């Protein structure tokens, strides 16, 4: 099940004053935080006013998975990965890059997004993921097909 961080969740932990000291509204700032285009410290109210200390702590905790996530905002836990290859075969980007994947075979091309090596997923070209910025598509096929919950789309 998806446990993505949503803009509304982030917004609720912001001051909500729309002071625009960060350059945008609080909702806009929430979007920027999720897309990693801004940092929490860019909100002066949140970091300097003690009355927001609770919200700051909660927001830092909420956004923690974003820090370890890749540019595609996906976290892969290799300890959980069982190498079933569901993601590699189901991935729409991978099939276009190596037609072998479309037929259920492990890709052999060096140009694919990812393949299975030594019983685990190995990412070769993250920039070929449909979620890669700036044209980030809201694709989460890999997360949906993962048997072991090793793949998590964080936002």
């Amino acid at each position, binding site marked *: 099940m998806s446990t993505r961080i949503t803009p509304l969740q982030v917004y609720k932990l912001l001051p909500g004053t729309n002071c625009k000291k960060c350059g945008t509204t609080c909702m806009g700032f929430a979007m920027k935080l999720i897309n990693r285009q801004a940092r929490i410290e860019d909100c002066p109210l949140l970091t300097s006013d003690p009355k927001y200390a609770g919200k700051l702590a909660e927001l830092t905790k909420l956004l923690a998975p974003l820090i370890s996530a890749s540019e595609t905002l996906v976290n892969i836990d290799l300890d959980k*990965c*069982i*190498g*079933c*290859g*569901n993601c*590699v*075969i*189901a991935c729409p980007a991978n*099939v276009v890059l190596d037609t*072998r994947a*479309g*037929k*259920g*075979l*492990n890709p*052999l091309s060096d140009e694919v997004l990812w*393949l*299975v*090596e*030594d*019983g*685990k997923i190995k990412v070769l070209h993250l920039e070929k993921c449909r979620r890669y910025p700036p044209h980030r598509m809201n694709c989460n096929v890999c997360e*949906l*097909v*993962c*048997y*072991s919950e090793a793949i998590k789309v964080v936002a």
Partner: protein
Amino acid sequence: MEIEGVPCTSCSLLCDDIVVDVRDNTVTRVLGTCSHGTKRFKELVGARPMKAAIAEQGGLKEVSVDEALEKAAEILKVAKKPLIYGGANSTNRTVELLVKLAQKLRGLYDSSASICHALLDLDPSFLGARLDDILEDADFILYWGADPAETHLRHASRYAVFPRGRSTPMGRESRIVAVVDVRETNTMRIAQHKVLLRPGSDAELARALRDLMFSKTPTVGEAAGVTLRDLSSIIKDLKPATYVAMFIGRGLLQSEKPEEALSSMAELARSLLELGKKVSIMPMAEYVNSMGQALITKKLGGAPRALDFSALKEHMSPEATATCQLEREGVDAALIVKSEVSEELTPLAVKALMRIPTIVLEERATWTFSNGKVSVPLSIMGVESGGTVTRMDGVEVKLKPFLKPPASVADEEVFLERLSSSL
């Protein structure tokens, strides 16, 4: 050196798209194997037994393979009714040799119980489908009592669910997946229909689905613990399907009445056929060559397991299983090939086995191996030794070994042929 197209021998899927990188007789990298296959290809070589041994006066004496063979022949020669056990983890030729050895010695041949044995008796019109056909055309996949996310990790990605086929151009989006089990399984994560049934009510569920297919009005609000709403939802997806592929797992054997469940499922399959659909029933073979073991044994002995050759006319009966004969002390020696008896037989049968001389042929360091009177380490099938094994759909796959085995281990086929000719 990169070797392409190596069949993986960790399960009965026998994935044949594996690439192995070998340097100095060591595997440095494997492409395409799941975690189970990787363990077999990379780790088993370092963890397996290396020396043949004979148990003597409470200790183990290391011997050569030839000495072990001599001792094994000695044990089998004096035995009145030996048990020959195994085959599901061996090559097809080995299965043949084991059955013929039992026949020659007028002993008992048996192998671990498998869902393959139960399914061989079904109407042949449901059997015979190939995994490749399912990849191309099956648009309704039904896993029943099977959890490939634990057992056959690449089943969905290599064949049944995710590949894009002739009639399923969108892969998973072109197929409906239903999983029937008594508990929530990881395979259910990829299914549109997650069916949790009451343990032992497989037959009831199959009957309910059949009735609903023919639009019979149900008299109760649920069947087998599944609500009518969920059942109707399955039927809604089952009706437009053109090819229904049913995969039956070992879970069915553990239900109270597996025969009744299977016959109800066959009835369901028959009604789907009547409605003009293509239907296949395939066992999720538990061990790498469970299917080969079942097919060859049935061909040679008339039944897929439990053959008693001690009588003038061999027959299969519940009394002829290894468990039953051991518990009754009906056998006086045993040859066990690549089988962990502590997992496959009852504790009582294992105790009885420990009282008779046992010859154990094994590629892994198992409890059975360390408790044999004569223990012979084998080369690892599909890694160090070749041969042919049978995939879960009956397709024979030729193995492509890529490592040189150590001199102190035996090849199972060669060892058994020599043993057989020395008797």
